[in-house]
């Protein structure tokens, strides 16, 4: 496995002094240095062009759109922060915001707990490890929309196999409409997210666990630590850097999720299970109000930005450097 280091670049990231320093070095460079810079510039050009045209520009355009009353097919006028005020007073949007936090929080905690459990069990397993690892990654690699369709069918109110199984196992006595009520639908969506995301947690944490030397555990065991103490005092701290990166990565993905809700509930019943992204889709595509839709999706940005900042800070602090998957 190639040793990765997101930290290296982050550690040398720009400070306020970077610009004058760069200008100074440009002036005092030798011919061979300049040749190297020219080569670097040429090599970076294709990637940077793509990212400028299809990421940076759309991002700025999105901010602009969110400040206008554009609808699809008609250029809008500047309306200031009206769209955001409108959203703030929109009960569906508030519900969507609340849902997104519940969804992200609950799903991440469950994925981490389950993933950790599975990783610990796999780490203790002697045979079958490769087979199990390969087969449990399937939910992660198969197109999410397609596997979510299978769940939608399993949750079908009339033909639900989940109901059938739970009924025959004695868990339920009446029919449950898994996607029919606001609360139960939200938890069904969370369940499917956990189903899809746990393998990713398990495999990555397992990779982290495999770098921890068994000697550390033996030493702790000789000192009289029981299994529980060994986990919390030895494994957990050593695994922290990997855990942190996986959790932050997953928080971003879950927070900005679209597919699961779009397929399972479409935001229903009665707009009660929308997330930021699905509501932005409903506004911006289904009802063609591009300005309002852009505002609803830009509303995710501050939170995502904070998570990314935290991640960069954590990497730079050197936290992620030590663990190494």
């Amino acid at each position, binding site marked *: *496995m*190639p040793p*990765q*280091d*997101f*930290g*290296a*670049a*982050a550690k*040398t*990231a*720009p400070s306020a002094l*970077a610009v004058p320093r760069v200008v100074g070095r440009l002036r005092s460079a030798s011919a061979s*240095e300049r040749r190297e*810079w020219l*080569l*670097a*510039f040429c090599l970076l050009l*294709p*990637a*940077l062009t*793509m*990212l400028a045209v*299809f990421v940076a520009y*759309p*991002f700025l*355009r*999105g901010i602009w759109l969110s400040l206008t009353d554009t609808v699809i097919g008609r250029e809008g006028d500047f309306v200031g922060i009206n769209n955001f005020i409108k959203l703030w007073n929109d009960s569906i949007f508030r519900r969507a915001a609340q849902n997104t936090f519940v969804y992200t929080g609950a799903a991440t905690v469950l994925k981490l707990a389950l993933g950790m*459990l*599975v990783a610990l*069990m796999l780490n203790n397993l002697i045979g079958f490890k490769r087979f199990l690892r390969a*087969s449990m*990654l*399937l*939910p992660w690699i*198969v*197109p999410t*929309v*397609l*596997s979510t*369709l*299978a769940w939608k*069918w399993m949750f*079908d109110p009339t033909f639900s196999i989940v*109901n059938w199984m739970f009924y025959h196992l004695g868990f339920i006595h009446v029919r449950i409409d898994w996607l029919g009520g606001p609360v139960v639908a939200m938890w069904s969506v969370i369940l499917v997210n956990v*189903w899809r995301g746990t*393998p990713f947690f398990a*495999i990555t944490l397992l*990779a982290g666990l495999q770098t921890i030397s068994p000697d550390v555990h033996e030493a702790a065991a000789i000192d009289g630590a029981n299994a529980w103490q060994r986990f919390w005092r030895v494994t957990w701290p050593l695994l922290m850097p990997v855990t942190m990166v*996986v959790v932050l*990565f997953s928080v971003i*993905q879950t*927070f900005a999720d679209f597919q699961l809700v779009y397929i399972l509930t479409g935001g229903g019943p009665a707009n009660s299970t929308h997330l930021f*992204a699905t509501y*932005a889709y409903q506004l911006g*595509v289904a009802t063609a109000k591009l300005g309002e839709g852009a505002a609803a*999706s*830009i509303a*995710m940005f501050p939170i995502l930005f904070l998570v990314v900042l935290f991640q960069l800070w954590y990497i730079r602090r050197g*936290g992620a450097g030590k663990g190494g998957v």
Partner: protein
Amino acid sequence: MAQVAGARWRRWASLYIPLGVFVIVTLFPFYYMAVTAVRPDREMYIPWNRPNFSPFWTLQPTLEHLQLLFTETLFARWLFNTLTIATLSTAIALFCGLLAAYALARLRFPGGGALGTGIFVTYLVPQTLLFLPLGDVIRTFHLSDTPWALIFTYPTFLIPFCTWLMMGYFRTIPKELEECAQIDGATRIQAMVRIVFPVAMPGILSAGIFAFTLSWNEFIYALVFLSSATTKTVPVGVVSELVRGDTFFWGPLMAGALLGSVPVAFIYSFFVEQYVSAMTGAVKG
């Protein structure tokens, strides 16, 4: 003796049984997808609380759903579209990512660190943040409803990923290798293309497989940028053409879901190790 038996019992209770349950829950939806895909309609629509509801198997497997998929929908076309789009966007992303990664990992130039961080941050930008303005940009370029809309936009999330994966890979290759080549009279670019890239082949393969899977699975851009039935990709085609209003054609839907999943599962089964290393590499600190 008793102690050994006790240990074995505990190993079953704390390891084999929970892992077994986990694997069953993980794989069950795929099994159910497969059973539904070959189950005849008359057997499918029996409410779950009837005694003759037999969920786990079917005694009269049928290929009618698959047949419907290929005769009455454009499924073959969607497969072809998805394959083309995924291949081309992966190629673009590998090209851009490889060159950028080489520059960031090997060359010393002012602002390199900041650029590396910048690319890392774009890696974290979710598609749902940009899909509306990006759709607008696509309309401006008159690319809506053409495969190019996706071939040009998928690299935006593939390039950062490929760049980071390859940067890590390049760092493991000793610098002396290129320096020797340069002493022997090769230019820097020749050394890069003839020496470093071939050595980095396993990394390039990992990045390529992962990028291909990501493009194959992408949904929201394809949903928003494509509108006519002939240009759709598999995930969007299945969802939009086999659901009419509130009517779900579950047989063909599951057959389509199964067939749409098989190619990635197939590729994956050959490259599990590369895939896992790309995945764990991509999030590694």
